[in-house]
């Protein structure tokens, strides 16, 4: 299932949106920045490899800017 590289513009938009929230699901990001969810998923995959975003599991999986959400105290 080769999906090719992510669109750099989508990656920038994802980062910009995640800057405005604590965490989000990619479906929500897609709706807010107006691109197909599959493109967001691909952008998030690359951003995670670049250590710019991370996945959080809090009963469902969210994405957030790396380090934005702290582990439990």
């Amino acid at each position, binding site marked *: 299932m080769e999906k090719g590289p992510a669109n750099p513009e989508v990656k920038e938009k994802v980062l910009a949106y995640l800057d405005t929230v604590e965490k989000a699901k990619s479906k929500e990001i897609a709706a807010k920045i107006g691109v197909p969810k599959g493109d967001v998923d691909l952008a998030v995959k690359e951003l995670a490899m670049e250590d710019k975003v991370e996945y959080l*599991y809090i009963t469902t*999986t969210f994405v957030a800017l790396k380090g934005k959400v702290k582990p439990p105290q």
Partner: protein
Amino acid sequence: MPDKKTPKLDELEHGPWPSFVTEIKKAAIRNESAKDLLNLLERSYDDKRGHWKHGGIVGVRGYGGGVIGRYTDLPEEYPHVAEFHTMRINAPSAWFYKTETLRTLCDIWEKHGSGLTNVHGSTGDLIFLGMKTEELQKTYDELSDAGFDLGGSGSCLRSPSCCVGPARCESACYDTLALCYDLTNSYQDELHRPMWPYKFKFKMSGCANDCVAAIARADCSIIGTWRDSIQVDQDQVKAYAESGLDIQGMVCDKCPTRALKYDHEKKELHVIAEDCSRCMHCINVMPKAVRPGKEKGATILLGGKSTIVQSAFLSWVIVPFMKMEPPYTEFKEMVARIWDWWDENGKTRERLGELIYRLGMTKFLREVGLPPVPQMVFRPRANPYVFWPQDEIVK
């Protein structure tokens, strides 16, 4: 620090069944985290409550799952389990191993964690139980170099798993191991980078005995079946009769559809093919004499899950019979449509079965393009409240 006493857990070292306490103690000889786990568990046995906090934000680069964060709520008293995370390792199809494979895993785990494992976890992954945050990436890197990969966790495709299938079972109606391996490799993005409302599980059983409980716990259960008639070997029927098996009582009378007739005089078993529902009973009792048919494939069922949130669901039939041969194009195209529909319509933490139940089977079938067939239901609706589509109404 002197060893603490664990009198309650020590009680669980008695008795004939192998003891998990003994296992923790073995690991505790060489590992401080395992020792603290033992002490913390004794504390739980005293307090009658667990002492673990929520998972959270741990993982390895490029993955959105495969690691489950755990922190004790008593880190001052049990510092070596202040971080005690779980790593899920994607197991080979049907859990076949060479000893050298297992030894490699043991050597990696001895270096980086508690030395405790689950073989296996409920989903089917091999579990490394208890590691510090700083060890996660190092452990993954070694695992990856040695040819292993992480399983799924979170709102993703969970690690597919399958029964022993044609590797060692005469009843397997399709190659469960091959399908499991193919789906796992085809859907690496879906497995490793959660992107859905909630989890999604594939479980594969080669026949209706369903040895991996696919129907009870998989959002998509793939259960082997055949479309023609069972095959009966009359010589073997005679052999069973002569060995003393009560064929009338244990086979024919227990056939749920009364599809079998036994001729006592000739010692022959006859099947009324159109009455057989392919439940596996007669094959289970007389495996030498009765075998599945020749036209083999699988029944696809959807929606299985445990209790949370809306009650447990058993998967229900959506495709009575599908050939299950590589490259599985028909199956994968259908799965893609189903995932898109769920992703589009599902609420957070809504499993596929609950979504179909909320929006209706009719809408689901229409929107993913599956034809309605009577095998999908035990019986049709008893109410007349059909939501008629506009294009079927005379304007």
